[in-house]
């Protein structure tokens, strides 16, 4: 059961990396939310406490339904439905996703195994999810995909928590969940404002604030070239 969930989780990561349709990406992230809720319910062996059920249901509701709904609503006004020209292409992204999975397996060898009863797949898949989230944030143009990347990364970190069987405490976990929800809530509102203000949701065109334009600062000879250019025009 656990292994099926984990393999599915790994596949959702790859699907996210290889998909260009924003709507499909949101659905995939929602599916990840369902998988994580199930994972958190089944991972700890032994008694099925009330605390566990409450957390899993909370996670299911917030991560699988509310957050995707918020993001979809932010998307509705925008006319875009596809990620256009990511910085790194889909095939290359998939390759990197597979590489990240391999790296995660290698990394997780080095962790101590605190819970021998837990599937050995948990930690590598969780790490790969964190990597995928980070990669989505840096390699995509759309602000929406970046928000999705944040959500995926957060999912991965949560799964690492499950893998290391580190329960913080009921209140804290509830707090973490609420924080993630509010983060997506605020991001959703900001996204809505971005697409209304700019008529696009491309994060790479949010670039009017910077100190380093990639060129060297104006030197004395700049004024000469400017005169030359003006003369030319």
């Amino acid at each position, binding site marked *: 059961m656990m292994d099926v969930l984990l393999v599915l989780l790994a596949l959702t990561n790859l699907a996210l990396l290889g998909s260009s349709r924003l709507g499909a990406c949101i659905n995939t992230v929602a599916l990840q939310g369902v998988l994580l809720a199930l994972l958190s319910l089944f991972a700890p062996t032994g008694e099925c406490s009330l605390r566990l059920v409450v957390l899993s249901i909370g996670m299911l509701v917030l991560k699988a339904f509310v957050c995707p709904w918020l993001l979809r609503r932010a998307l509705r006004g925008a006319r875009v439905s596809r990620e256009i020209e990511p910085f790194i292409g889909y095939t290359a992204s998939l390759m990197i996703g597979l590489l990240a999975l391999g790296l995660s397996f290698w990394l997780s060898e080095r*962790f*101590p195994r*605190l819970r021998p009863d837990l599937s050995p797949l948990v930690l590598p898949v969780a790490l790969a999810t*964190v990597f995928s989230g*980070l990669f989505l*944030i840096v390699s995509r143009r759309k*602000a929406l995909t*970046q*928000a999705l990347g*944040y959500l995926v*990364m*957060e999912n991965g*970190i949560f799964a*690492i*928590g499950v893998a*290391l069987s*580190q*329960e*913080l*405490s009921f*209140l*804290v*976990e509830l*707090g*973490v969940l*609420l*924080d993630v929800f*509010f*983060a997506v809530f*605020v*991001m959703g509102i*900001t996204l809505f*404002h*971005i697409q209304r*203000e*700019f008529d696009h949701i491309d*994060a790479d065109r*949010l*670039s*009017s*604030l910077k*100190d380093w334009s990639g060129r060297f*600062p104006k030197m004395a000879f700049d004024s000469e070239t400017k005169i030359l250019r003006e003369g030319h025009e």
Partner: protein
Amino acid sequence: MIWTLVLVPGIAGFLAFLLRSDRPRRILLLAAALAHAVLTAVVCLEGPQGLPGDWLRLDELGVLFLPLTSALFLAAAWYGVDYLAHEVHGPQRDPEEGALFSNEPEAIFIGCLLFFLTTMTLVILSQHFGLLWVSVEATTLVSAPLIYFHRHHRSLEATWKYLLVCSVGIALALLGTFLLALAASRPGCEHVPLLVQRLMDDAGGLRAEWLKVAFVFFLIGYGTKMGLAPLHTWLPDAHSEAPSVVSALLSGALLNCAFLGILRVQQVCVAAGEGAFGRDLLVLFGLLSMGLAAVFILRQPDFKRLLAYSSVEHMGIMALGVGLGGVSAFGAFLHALNHSLTKGMLFLIAGNILVLYRTKAVADVRGVWRVLPVSGALWMLGFLALTGSPPFGPFLSEFTILKGALEQGRGAVAVAYLFFLALAFVGMASAILPMAQGAPREFSEKPSGERLGSIVPPALLGAFVLMLGVYVPEQLQTAIQTAARAVGGP
């Protein structure tokens, strides 16, 4: 008793959303800030104390940072009320690009300001690493709407960067929290609760290698929020686009709170005998921040960004001081006080300049001294204080850090430190001196006199900075020494 510190601004924040008209809401902001300050004073005089269960406790670090945050918030609230009363309502022209924009509803602004105070108080008081994480992330979320007060595309861009960069950074700190739990766990044993005191008592049983990994994640995570280079990218944008009141709070209060997160882990590391590892990293990041900030301070055309980069520089100084340890750690805590007060004052004055000149370009602002005599004088004094000139507080604290570095025989660090300070001084001087002097340009409308509400709060902050340079009260000295010892000082 200390739970009231969290509760009072929290309830006031909810009320701010419910109130219908602006005036009572502004009075509510002032009242809540005042109540928080009074409660802080009472609690601090009672000394360190905690709630049963020890999740919230005013410890030796909190005793230092809580009054600082509270005082700065009170000054900012006073200034903010005056600012809001005179801010244009309805659509206005963007002075930089000419497009129309309007401001955020005041209910959201004041409500979020109060929640900001609540979450920062929670960060300072929380003793549980999980709760610490939750409250640090919450500060990001409630302060994002504050940055987007002027609703135009530049502030929107700054808000998005702030949200994303800080959230991702802080998410890494959550990973650090899990790794810390891993370091504390033993096979077949009960979970050790992640309370600072419990971990320190149990420090012998921590797995050193995982503690180190956890520290790295905490440093990167909270370091992003604190503005340590090269993770500072959100900071200049957010500080320059937010209204000046918010910039003052972000720089003076929020960055300290993030630093506190790193200090708490360092406390655990020191207790476990791994303090040297964290110290070296802090020295490295400190010098890097100072150097990078100094480069961007030179030839900086925007005076609010100038102040923002100077915050990066001073965070670097603080990290360096704690990293060096000993006398320098004492200097670092003193510097945290000095920097917050000075930077708060300078951002508030920058707000006054911005309101009159309607530009953030250094080149377009001349003759502040003549048009706004009090603000101009404070601007100059603030510059002198910030760059570490005697007799102001930062001189004393920066000198103490230098002394610590030399005592330990770390000559190379001391030379780099002095070099970066000199660079920053040159950069700040070449921007700020011409702004204060010279002949002012013609204004379309005759500038009215300076209002009390816009000069008294920064002047009070400035007076504190001067006081700290001349005389550090005995009690404060003891408090700083205790705090410095807690992170591995003398």
